[in-house]
């Protein structure tokens, strides 16, 4: 890997150095825009005691749900974790610690982590359970809660295209948490649908500049749909 060539061809190399008890961010909203192959590799490696930061926890046996099956996650930081029975069992039995965080606060905490901002005030959650034990302050007559930033040892993200230097673009609503997580990872690994040469992505329209990306691997994606909703009733 000389100069700015970030390409790796084997999943083992993509996640080399990811060990027990690390903090791992995983991009995606529901099952949309998740790094499917990197999650599979994480299952294969078997790293345990992970703190996992992701908006959702996948569904039963897919997405991050796979890491619940193998009991690799110790703590889950997410905004919404419905529709997952394995999750429910491990949460109720106390096996899994869950830190529920409002979606916008979660996004901003991750963005702040990558941006060198250790803490910020937000109106979200004031007066609710989320603000318990946190500092609050009034600005212009409105109350705000002080929230601290999040970073990760590894960020596992999914992009549409990458060039070999790690510049990334995303497609439609797969973007979601991926760009901020790319910035907040000490090591950021991007799994992409297509790899192109430097210069093929228009510099005016790069979503994640390569400076944030350490490794790029080409994947294949199942892209499972959670809620198939059609204009006309489907007769499946």
């Amino acid at each position: 890997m000389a100069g700015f060539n970030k390409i790796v061809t084997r999943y083992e190399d993509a996640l080399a150095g990811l060990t027990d008890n690390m903090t791992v961010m995983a991009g995606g909203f529901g099952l949309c825009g998740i790094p499917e192959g990197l999650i599979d590799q994480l299952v294969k490696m078997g790293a345990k005691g992970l703190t996992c930061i992701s908006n959702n926890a996948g569904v039963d046996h897919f997405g991050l749900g796979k890491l619940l099956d193998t009991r690799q996650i110790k703590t889950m930081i997410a905004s919404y974790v419905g529709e997952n029975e394995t999750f429910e069992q491990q949460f109720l039995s106390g096996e899994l610690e869950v830190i529920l965080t409002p979606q916008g606060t979660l996004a901003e905490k991750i963005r702040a982590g990558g941006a060198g901002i250790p803490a910020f005030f937000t109106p979200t959650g004031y007066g609710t359970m989320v603000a318990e034990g946190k500092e609050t302050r009034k600005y212009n007559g409105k109350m705000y809660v002080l929230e601290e930033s999040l970073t990760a040892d590894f960020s596992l993200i999914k992009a549409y295209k990458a060039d070999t230097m790690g510049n990334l673009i995303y497609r439609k609503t797969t973007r979601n948490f991926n760009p901020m997580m790319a910035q907040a990872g000490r090591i950021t690994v991007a799994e992409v649908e297509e790899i192109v040469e430097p210069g093929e992505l228009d510099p005016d329209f790069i979503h994640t500049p390569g400076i944030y990306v350490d490794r790029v691997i080409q994947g294949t994606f199942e892209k499972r749909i959670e809620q198939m909703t059609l204009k006309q009733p489907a007769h499946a």
Partner: protein
Amino acid sequence: MALTKDQIAQRLSQELKDGYYVNLGIGIPTLVANYIPEGIQVMFQSENGLLGMGEFPAAETVDPDLINAGKQTVTAATGAAYFSSSESFEMIRGGHVDLTILGAFEVDQKGNLASWMIPGKLVKGMGGAMDLVASAQNIIVAMMHANKKGDSKILKECTLPLTGVQCVSKVITDLATLELRDGAFHLLERAPGVSVEEIQEKTEANLVINGEVPEMRLSAPVPA
């Protein structure tokens, strides 16, 4: 007669104004998109990173890369834009969305709202609801006036864990349109055929009734 969910959505749609950017919550609010009044244009914001959410796709155009905040497959309207989750909540928290319509388990006369958690049952998480209620200048709550046993959900004080405080101004239920002013709900409209007495009976919160209370007008026909 109490309104159906579609009729509540129909009444809610009268709150839309031309040029509004609107965030619709999951459930009844989602149905509002089916009743946009003629002659006005609105753009729907979906907090997972889409401004300009269109209708559901035809089977042949379904794209797993394009979903809404309810994880449903959708389309993008002409003039739409995609962005990250942090940018999406910049929009929301920064007060750029003109109207937010969302559901609730309970509201109270302090303007508080509970919508995300029922202790003892599994907690699924608040998603973006806490950000929406803490940020919007203009929130309308769409909900059932009472539960199946007839117990009011329009309360003096919420009993469930809160989603936000002092954020509710207008509530539209299957029975009535209520506006919160000075610590009391003012009854603005009745559902067609519903009596003031029934509304009063099913409202635990302080309810202010001034003179004759008009019936809602549900002009648009309910689509099949």
